[in-house]
């Protein structure tokens, strides 16, 4: 549990004082929410955060919205003013259930202590089942102080909440038939694969029908990038070959993905030749953005297993795979391999040094997109990054939460010099709790992604994007972490090695090429095959 104390949660903190529950004090409530999120992503368990009322609760809001957009199981407990004061503009009062209504899967205001045990049980159940998401429990201080007999509800029964997990057999049969007859199939997967632990089924299916696999941002780690069938990520900063494959495909099997606008580009030009099978546990995701030929509501793992059982013969995709191989040769991911210290190189070196086994958190922006492209993701629950909401300042506190959830793992936060400063105060949390996260700042002196858009679409008018930064090495040292500055390409590998060998928190300040861009890039609202740059 991550959190921050305050006036109306004093009774809870008093109990935590000698409780066995592991509580980690962050330096900002936003950090607590992101840490709970990171913990949940790496473990698959529900992450918990706790704050006081008013500003404590509103500081959690960004973290809750972030978890909501990425379907992360989380329970956020907020203190509330005394029941009889609610609505009276009391000190540190805010309408938390009102504020969080549209960014939670569900929320509760508990007005009676006899309801508390059931509410907590339900909150964890709702957060972790179906399409996961955050649940807020708003808890007035007088309810915290009230006494009742503790009865733990063994079973949760909510008549209005029964997620569909088994896919409709008839629909799965239809999908199987389409796959058997397809000659240019693409499997397009998202975070649903990670959530339902369906990577093994995905792997078996891809091999069985010899279909290439492309992943959304949220799906990274679900299928190894080192596999010949892997197309990497698709969409705005996806690989050229993944986007070409979508545009030429005759059948797209979408599993646990939601056809986000960053994935589809111009919607009416998306996959013009393909029939689309869409598997998702959330019926509202289906046919939301894109017309779907075979909708299947269900759990990814269950549906994929059933699909595997029903596919009798594998299609002949050899010609298709050959075409894709050619695209891979002609349009690989590319950056200039010269003597300059380029950010992509740093990420490649992190991959090399950790053999791809590290947990990789990122901030948001160019650092994040390079981390998608240049780290060969291959293990589920090792990719911790803010997808839907795109929250700067997420990576570092999330890495702290991930380190709590995976104590034996090397955890990196790949950061930009802009976003790291949004929650840099959590250095105190990491150092004090001996959570040896390695922060790799790709320091280009700009808010890089915004600068890139200004370069490409606003005539290089760099409005409010150049940054005058603090000395990150000194800053790290002030917090009791290790600070390193790397300015030369030849020093990168050794520095990363040293950081990994250091048992403390390490801040690596990589002073990289200032105006490097993320390519390829599909400009917003363009068709997927209208890519800019990045060609060898």
């Amino acid at each position, binding site marked *: 549990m991550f959190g921050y104390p305050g006036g109306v949660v004093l009774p809870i903190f008093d109990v935590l004082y000698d409780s066995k529950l592991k509580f980690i004090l962050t330096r900002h409530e936003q950090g607590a929410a992101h840490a709970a999120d990171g913990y949940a992503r790496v473990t698959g368990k529900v992450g918990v955060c706790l704050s006081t009322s008013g500003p404590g609760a509103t500081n959690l809001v960004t973290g809750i919205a972030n978890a909501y957009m990425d379907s992360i199981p989380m329970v956020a407990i907020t203190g509330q003013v005394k029941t009889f004061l609610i609505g009276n503009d009391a000190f540190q009062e805010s309408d938390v259930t009102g504020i969080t209504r549209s960014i939670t899967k569900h929320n509760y205001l508990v007005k009676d202590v006899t309801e508390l045990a059931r509410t907590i049980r339900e909150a964890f159940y709702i957060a972790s089942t179906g399409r996961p998401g955050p649940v807020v429990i708003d808890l007035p201080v007088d309810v915290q102080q009230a006494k009742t007999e503790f009865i733990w509800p063994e079973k949760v029964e909510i008549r209005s*909440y029964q997620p569909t997990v088994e896919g409709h057999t008839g629909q799965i049969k239809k999908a199987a038939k389409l796959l058997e007859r397809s000659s240019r199939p693409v499997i397009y997967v998202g975070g649903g694969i990670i959530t339902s632990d369906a990577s093994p089924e995905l792997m078996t299916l891809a091999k069985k029908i010899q279909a290439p696999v492309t992943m959304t941002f949220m799906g990274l780690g679900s299928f190894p990038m080192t596999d010949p069938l892997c197309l990497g990520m698709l969409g705005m900063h996806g690989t050229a070959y993944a986007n070409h494959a979508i545009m030429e495909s005759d059948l797209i099997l979408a599993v646990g993905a939601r056809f986000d606008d960053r994935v589809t580009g111009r919607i009416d030009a998306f996959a013009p030749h393909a029939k689309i099978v869409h598997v998702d546990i959330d019926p509202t995701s289906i046919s939301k953005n894109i017309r779907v030929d075979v909708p299947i509501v269900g759990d990814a793992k269950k549906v994929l297993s059933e699909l595997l059982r029903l596919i009798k013969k594998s299609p002949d995709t050899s010609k298709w795979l050959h075409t894709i191989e050619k695209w891979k040769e002609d349009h690989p991911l590319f950056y200039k391999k010269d003597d300059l210290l380029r950010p992509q190189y740093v990420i490649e070196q992190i991959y090399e040094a950790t053999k791809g086994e590290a947990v990789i958190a990122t901030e948001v922006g160019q650092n994040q997109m390079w981390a998608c492209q240049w780290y060969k993701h291959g293990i589920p629950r090792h990719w911790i990054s803010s997808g839907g909401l795109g929250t700067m300042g997420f990576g570092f506190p999330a890495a702290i939460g991930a380190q709590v959830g995976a104590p034996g793992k090397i955890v990196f936060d790949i950061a930009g010099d802009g976003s790291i400063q949004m929650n840099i105060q959590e250095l105190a949390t990491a150092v004090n709790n001996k959570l040896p996260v390695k922060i790799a700042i790709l320091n280009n002196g700009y808010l890089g992604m915004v600068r890139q858009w200004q370069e490409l679409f606003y005539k290089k008018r760099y409005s409010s994007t150049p940054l005058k930064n603090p000395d990150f090495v000194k800053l790290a040292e002030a917090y009791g972490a290790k600070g390193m500055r790397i300015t030369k390409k030849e020093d990168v590998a050794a520095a990363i090695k040293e950081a990994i060998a250091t048992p403390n928190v390490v801040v690596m300040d990589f002073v990289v090429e200032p105006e490097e861009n993320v390519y390829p890039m599909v400009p917003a609202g363009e068709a997927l095959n209208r890519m800019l740059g990045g060609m060898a």
Partner: protein
Amino acid sequence: MKHTISILVENRFGVLARVAGLFSARGYNIDSLTVSETQDKTISRMTVVVNAEDEKILEQIKKQLNKLIDIITVVDYTKKEYIERELVFIKIAVDKKSLPVIKKMVDKAGKIGSASGLAVARILDKKNDSIIVELVDDQERIKNFLAGLKDFKVVEVVRSGRIAIAK
């Protein structure tokens, strides 16, 4: 196109705000909304009438309504066999000349049954200078009745919003 959507919900605080939020977040105006307990005290029924500017968006709203934890079922009556009624109170300023004319209109409206049954139309309250008319009817006939009053001085119209039941 107008849709009449019937929603069974848990009878708890906050549910109305959740339902209304899905419409308001998209800038959708709700034409009418009624909420009350059903035969089961733990369940309430909401009847929402909304004008769908885009059928695809309404479809999405209905799915998202279904997804809300406190919502038990969502039924769109629009393409189903159903009966709907609305209760209307109309306060009309009257004088000696207009009163008999309005009385006649009310009597007539009460006598002619609507397509699915007998409508209610009666004078509930009478003062020297005003009367209150009660009307229980379907949308078309309420509209016609109100249109028939255009030459009189209508002081206030209070409508309950539609309720509907499937046949």
